[in-house]
């Protein structure tokens, strides 16, 4: 039997329509036959999320972002998820992945398993979001300039101390009080800055750790490099801290009358100790001063690709 042309065309059109419909659903990560539910969320910063990005729960692709719109408070994101995926109340949404290698995705962190289920069309609140590399890039210059200021102050204090100590003709009493003042100043600065530097550094380490788990291969190598630099920086700052503490202790001892001026002048060991401390500090300072931006530059490496 000859198939009429009308039937052939009809079949072709229906087939094309079906292929188009299923094909677009397939590439949008939507279930091919079951339906999808749409949910909404809002971010302060969408971090480059666009329609078509993957929606993932526990690292499993379950749907796709269908729309990202600018709203006054940030960005409103609509996303669709296969109807057989249960999103419980208390779930949060966050932007995951790395936008600069454009594998950004929408992560859903599920709420407690026994919580009631979200209805389709519900609003899923956004989790507090962290843009890992953006954070590092933003903070790095800040950390360095703080470290820089700190080191400059320290250096100034030490320079004064050194000059005074090594000049036997100067008024020793005056010298000592001046050293004490400098050491006090140094101590205050250190106390103040110490906490924040340590906090920032641990922050950076955490972030670097996060990057490591996210990216692989070559990215990991670079991150390793960043890590090494960060560790070195931390060591330097730590040894700076110990050294200045030692100096401070020494000066405190002098001050509290445990030693006399004569002892300071005659006793070699004390003088040597003080001198060594100062030299050590100086070396660290020189290391920093030589190229204070090297740390930043290493950090920047991460950003460029």
């Amino acid at each position: 039997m000859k198939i009429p042309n009308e039937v052939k065309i009809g079949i072709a059109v229906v087939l094309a329509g079906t292929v188009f419909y299923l094909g677009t659903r397939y590439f949008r990560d939507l279930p091919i036959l079951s339906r999808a539910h749409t949910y909404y969320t809002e971010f302060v910063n969408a971090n480059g999320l666009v329609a078509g990005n993957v929606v993932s729960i526990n690292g499993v692709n379950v749907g796709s972002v269908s729309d990202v719109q600018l709203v006054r408070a940030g960005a409103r994101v609509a996303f669709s998820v296969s109807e057989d995926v249960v999103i419980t109340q208390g779930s949060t949404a966050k932007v995951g992945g790395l936008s600069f290698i454009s594998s950004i995705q929408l992560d859903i962190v599920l709420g407690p398993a026994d919580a009631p289920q979200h209805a389709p069309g519900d609003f899923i609140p956004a989790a507090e979001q962290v843009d890992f590399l953006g954070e590092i890039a933003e903070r790095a210059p800040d950390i360095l300039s703080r470290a820089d200021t700190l080191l400059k102050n320290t250096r100034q204090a030490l320079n004064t101390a050194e000059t005074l100590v090594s000049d036997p003709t100067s008024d020793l009493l005056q010298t000592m009080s001046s050293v004490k003042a400098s050491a006090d100043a140094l101590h205050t600065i250190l106390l103040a800055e110490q906490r924040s530097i340590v906090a920032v550094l641990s922050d950076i380490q955490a972030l670097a750790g996060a990057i490591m788990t996210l990216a692989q291969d070559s990215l990991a190598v670079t991150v390793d490099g960043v890590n090494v630099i960060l560790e070195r920086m931390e060591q330097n700052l730590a040894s700076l801290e110990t050294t200045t503490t030692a100096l401070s202790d020494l000066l405190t001892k002098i001050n509290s009358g445990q030693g006399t001026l004569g002892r300071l002048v005659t006793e070699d060991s004390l003088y040597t100790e003080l001198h060594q401390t100062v030299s050590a500090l100086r070396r660290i300072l020189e290391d920093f001063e030589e190229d204070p931006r090297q740390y930043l530059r290493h950090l920047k490496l991460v950003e460029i690709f």
Partner: protein
Amino acid sequence: MNGVVLNLVRPFFSLGRFSLLLAKACGSLGDIGIYRKNMVVQMVRIGLESIPIVALAAAFSGAVTTVQTAYQLVSPIIPPKVIGAVVVPSLTMELAAVVTGFILSGRVGARIAAELGTMRVTEQIDALEAMGLNSVGYLIVPRVAAGILMFPVLYVAACLIGVAGSLLAAMLTGVVSIGEFILGAREHYDNFGPYFGLIKAFVFGFLITSISCYMGYYTEGGAEGVGRSTTRAAVMSCVFILVADFALAIVLL
């Protein structure tokens, strides 16, 4: 001097005559009876009979794009799934529609121009008119309508077979696993892409058939004129596909 003026005026003359022809075609849209049967025949000729050649071209476009993308992305930093992310949108947004358009400029455009051109020089079009039939409605409307309706079908076929070709090439050359290819395509899937391709298919279908109908319908000068119209139909269809491709990209993207 007169020749120069004539050459300057010619494009406007052609555009005007083309527009009038389209207006006349639109005017006879209501008269379904005279073109319905013809339209079915044209849909088979323009659409269904073109599927094999379109499939062949799409399969190779997909395969070549895959292999070349893999070749150009030699870097340990770039994961192989990017190949899928590049190839699938290239196919759906550009290649499937444009390659189909080019092939059909030759296959369909030349055929339409030759058919109508021959009908013109052998007075068959005059014969239709003399009978009291609207020759534009009878000859042009079914062809253009068939083009507009069947091109999207061919586009979908080209996409499907193009992606299949890419996957086959990926599998045979081993540049990327099928899973990674699809993962990349899905991660970077743009919702608008296939619709953009579909819009292109509509526009190209209209351009190829209407330009070829115009060339054929206004053929002058015997067998030689038919030859001239045929060539011009194929060339002009290709040129206007490129122009429209660019214009659509600017307007819609």
